[in-house]
């Protein structure tokens, strides 16, 4: 991955070919997204590396399983060699890595450009603060979920292919491996989970991190963590309640109906109905808070210079 300018997953290689298709008002936005991916290559390199390590682990596991088979064919080879727990664990890890780099990115996005003074360069070009901040929000909200989904699905398919190769000639019917695998079923759920939870549900968290990133004179991590911490403490001392803490917890863990990968496999069909998710008032409250934080962020970027 040493050629980032034309090897970014999720984007067509050869920018010149793609550019005319983008309408002129979208061009600054499109290029702002691309430049974020040039700067923060960790956004796709980290999930890719996680996927590579997981594939290696699964490969070792399958080889060991085959060696221990001793010619006795299991009744359900798909469950024995590539159980859906493997896919889910791998996907959860890749998604978790994506989430972490997304959070790291969001906190650094507006702080980094002030720290290295490059904000003076960005501001010398006809890209509005609105466009710049929206592009930076789009990264954790849309780009990272889509990238991690693509990587997780690709990793799942490669897992199946590696499993097939390892089990060739072992007597296990390969086609059974593919048809009985719950993989494709689970993949849909990942996508749903990534876009809704990692995207929309987390929106106020991203909004808060962007605001801190745009404002903080130094040490954005401290400024991001300290205020919620203090609010929880003050609430506990003054009223002996823990609403703030509960709210923050719910924000991070996701709404009860979201279909987290862990509990979802039991009742996939029900969880896939977005009705539950979109009727959750917490989602809309969160989005409203995110919008306010975003307005503040755009305003701050207008006023703040390099540090």
């Amino acid at each position, binding site marked *: 991955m040493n050629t980032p300018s034309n090897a970014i997953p999720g984007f067509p290689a050869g920018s010149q070919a793609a550019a005319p298709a983008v309408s002129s008002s979208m061009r600054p936005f*499109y*290029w702002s997204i*691309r*430049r974020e991916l*040039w700067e923060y290559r960790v956004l796709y390199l980290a999930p890719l590396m996680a996927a590579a390590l997981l594939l290696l682990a699964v490969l070792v596991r399958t080889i060991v399983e085959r060696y221990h088979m001793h010619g006795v064919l299991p009744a359900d080879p798909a469950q024995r060699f590539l159980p859906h727990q493997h896919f889910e664990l791998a996907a959860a890890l890749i998604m978790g890595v994506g989430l972490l780099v997304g959070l790291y990115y969001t906190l650094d996005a507006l702080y980094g450009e002030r720290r*290295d003074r490059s904000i003076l360069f960005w501001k010398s070009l006809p890209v509005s603060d609105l466009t710049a901040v929206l592009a930076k929000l789009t990264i954790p909200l849309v780009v990272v979920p889509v990238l991690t989904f693509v990587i997780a699905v690709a990793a799942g398919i490669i897992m199946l292919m590696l499993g097939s190769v390892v089990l060739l000639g072992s007597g296990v019917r390969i086609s059974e491996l593919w048809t009985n695998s719950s993989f494709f079923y689970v993949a849909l759920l990942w996508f749903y989970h990534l876009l809704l939870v990692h995207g929309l549900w987390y929106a106020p968290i991203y909004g808060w991190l962007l605001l801190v990133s745009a404002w903080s004179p130094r040490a954005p991590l401290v400024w991001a963590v300290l205020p919620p911490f203090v609010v929880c403490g003050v609430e506990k001392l003054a009223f002996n309640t823990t609403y703030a803490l509960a709210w923050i917890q719910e924000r991070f863990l996701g709404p009860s109906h979201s279909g987290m990968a862990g509990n979802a496999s039991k009742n996939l069909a029900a969880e896939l109905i977005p009705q539950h998710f979109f009727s959750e008032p917490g989602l809309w409250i969160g989005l409203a808070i995110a919008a306010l934080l975003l307005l503040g962020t755009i305003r701050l970027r207008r*006023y703040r210079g390099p540090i």
Partner: protein
Amino acid sequence: MACIDARGLRKSYGATVALDGVNLRVEEGRILGLIGPNGAGKTTALNAILGLTPYQGELRVLGRDPWSERDQLMRDVCFIADVAVLPRWMRVGQALDYVAGVHPRFDRSKAEGFLSRTSNALRQKIKKLSKGMVTQLHLALVMAIDARLLVLDEPTLGLDILFRKQFYDSLLTDYFDRSRTILVTTHQVEEIEHVLTDVMFINGGRIVLDCSMEELESRYLEVMVRPEQVAAARALKPIHERQVLGGSVLLFDRVDRQQLAALGDVRTPRIADLFVAVIGNQNGQAQGVAQ
């Protein structure tokens, strides 16, 4: 239409007044040097012109209000705010791609033409480039944009003399034409003296001198006075006097050339000397200011 038109421009940070009622007017097609000591308000003035900071008073740049119409204004205005603001993680080629992507008036082949004269390779990361090469890259990007106003804030700070000379040479030969306007601030006045069409001194948030180079030449004269004539020369009320090897140099404002010729060699003062005279007087230190 004037390129920049400011009336009563004010800006203060708490109790510190950075701009104290600045009036200035820059016509199109001029190269203006804005010169002032540290903390005089140069950068604040530029930031106001570029819509980077809010201000009080009236300000129009290319007919627009830079604070409220900044997004449209930046299509016609370019600036190099400082050396080394190009993002260090970027590759040279990415910088070209990005500017080509977002700027409707950017001519990529032109920028590549400028770069081919330098040793900048497209694959190279900006952090691997020397300070001089980064400046060359930034200048190549900016010169390939068909802008109407170019603002340069200390564009050559920290560069060696070869780069500095090259910088202004290419600006003049490859970029400037009578339809563009350039506003430049620098401490290295001597190097831009021959480039400027206008000069402005700023001190304590106020414009203390504002004239074209022709006006400057006809208005200010410097005389190398022989020792025996110093008293006579002083009677003509020089605005500044300094000692050099073999005599005194006196600077006069609006004094007849013939009259001065009788006292010694008459010449047009360097901007640096005029600066020391004007700003030095202002700060109440008529003589012996840093040379």
